């Protein structure tokens, strides 16, 4: 194929040869303008968040340079101090809760998904087809439709308003199992597993030492998806938790949002806290995504490349 193109280039008349790169440049110039426009749109709210975080409570509303530029003073550190000390430092507790739920639910979901995906891909057990059909159906069940019955169920066994009420339901990830199955079926050859069995390795050892290392990209992807899913979850903790000490940061900030509307901050500008609190709460995930770029960018294609 490349030979053909090369001859085509050579045979092309000189005007065409000179025109081609120029056309490509113009196109790429247009592409870059388009991209710059998109970047502006997607980053603007974050820019606003950063700028607004440096303003004092009053400056937020009467900013001389508008909402999208820095105001007179620089109150970021004051705001941060207020954020972390307000109400006995409840914000830090919310961050800790978010972390606990995200790690607990995310790791749990990943472990279950890896085991189940491996089972679906590599074992022929009775009921496999039926169970997998059920799983595919479950991918289509909207998770929020489960929140209210889950709440009622958990309250019957007196488990609402506990950490478990958030962590345990978060371990359910049918889509994670599906991704694992798809990936494992391709990436883990049966022959390799059989060879390990011939060598006398037990089933669990075959899984741990042969299959698991080959599934690593999918494991990272599912882990990332489920940690982010749990960290960002709002409906479930909102429904099952009532003690604000147990709130994750999403529900906590929304609590402030409600109170700020009622003007109930007790002398503190809750709007400032909401803005600084939002900024601080999104930093960990953004950092995680930037740090793990090479994993998630490749990994997210698993479901779509079949």
């Amino acid at each position, binding site marked *: 194929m490349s030979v053909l193109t090369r001859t085509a280039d050579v045979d092309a008349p000189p005007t065409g040869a000179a025109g081609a790169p120029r056309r490509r440049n113009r196109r790429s110039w247009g592409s870059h303008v388009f991209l710059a426009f998109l970047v502006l749109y997607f980053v603007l709210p974050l820019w*606003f968040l950063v700028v607004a975080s440096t303003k004092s409570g009053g400056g937020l509303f009467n900013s001389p340079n508008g909402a999208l530029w820095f105001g007179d003073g620089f109150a970021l550190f004051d705001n941060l101090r207020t954020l972390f000390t307000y109400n006995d430092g409840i914000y830090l507790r919310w961050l800790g809760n978010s972390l606990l739920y995200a790690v607990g639910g995310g790791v749990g979901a990943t472990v279950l998904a890896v085991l189940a995906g491996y089972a679906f891909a590599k074992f022929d057990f009775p009921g496999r087809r039926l169970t997998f059909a059920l799983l595919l159906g479950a991918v289509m069940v909207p998770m929020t*439709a489960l929140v209210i019955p889950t709440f009622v169920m958990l309250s019957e066994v007196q488990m609402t308003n506990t950490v478990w009420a958030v962590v345990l339901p978060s371990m359910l990830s049918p889509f994670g199992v599906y991704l694992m199955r798809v990936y494992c079926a391709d990436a883990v050859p049966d022959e390799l597993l059989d060879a390990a069995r011939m060598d006398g390795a037990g089933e669990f050892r075959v899984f741990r030492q042969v299959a698991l290392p080959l599934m690593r990209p999918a494991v990272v992807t599912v882990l990332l998806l489920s940690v982010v899913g749990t960290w960002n979850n709002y409906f479930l903790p909102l429904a099952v938790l009532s003690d604000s000490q147990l709130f994750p940061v999403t529900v906590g900030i929304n609590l402030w949002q409600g109170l700020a509307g009622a003007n109930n901050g007790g002398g503190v500008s809750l709007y400032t806290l909401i803005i600084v609190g939002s900024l601080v709460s999104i930093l960990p995930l953004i950092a995680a995504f930037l740090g793990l770029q090479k994993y998630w960018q490749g990994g997210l294609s698993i479901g779509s490349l*079949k």
Partner: protein
Amino acid sequence: MATLDTAPRPQAPAAHPAPARSRRRRRGRTQGLIGWAFLAPFAVVFLVFLVAPLLYAFYLSLFSKGLATGERFAGLDNYTRAFTDPAFLNGVWFVVRFSLVVIPVQILVALAAALVLDSVTSRFARFSRLMIFVPYAIPAVIGAVIWGFLYSPNFGPLEQLFGDGAPFLLSPDNLFYGFTNVVTWQWAGYYMIIIYAALQGIDPAVYEAARIDGAGSWQIATRIKIPMISSALILILVFSLIGTLQFFTEPQVLTPISNGAISTDITPNVYAFNLAFRFAQFNYASAISFALGFVVFIGVYVFLFLTRKRGGFLK
């Protein structure tokens, strides 16, 4: 390695057909048990947190509870009530209309961004890819809160740009645009990455062949790239369909600042939440949850059935 000596060596199957078959059968049975052992932990969570709540929701939905009457069996009364309840029907109508607007918008933005990113390779393109994706890492609540500030008639940039004539994006007339903007901002980057990854998976030799046949960039994009990534597009459509039909977080979060434009029954999910947690009508709320789940399930299933030739997703 010590186990090597004790492990039975497989014998040539041809020499002893009968024992080999019985061994294979035995191995099949133990294999089945091991398969189930690997599946069991997930199966437990699946039963407890998916199957049980669904069945329980259905059970709850068959009863009604009144102060005077107590709990009594109501049959399908809750469902007839739901499907004649203007609050519920309005919510359904709202999410259906909203889906028809927001899904194409999101997918077009994501697709355009992915196609452009796929055609240029520069440091700025890599940077853009990350920046467009960043909103995905931001919780929907925080995204809604930020946009709430930006929409604010008190100090948002729109107010400063247009003065008193600024459109308030959470007024009854503009609600649609306000929500479309937040949701697109939140999800387009994630969809863009999925499409982009699928585009990167196409063999470049295909483009080369097309170029030789005289295809321009536009033709390559519409006749080769888009058809070749159709399974990724279907995956995204399914995700956004499931997501928009159960729209909850943004309306819930933005209600306090909308001056009443966002009602407590704006979407079925918001309605069910308010029924359950403000009015303690758990039976009716369960009926609505179950009906919503069922409608989404059927909708997605029909969609996948119609597009079954196109995609490998859920095959």
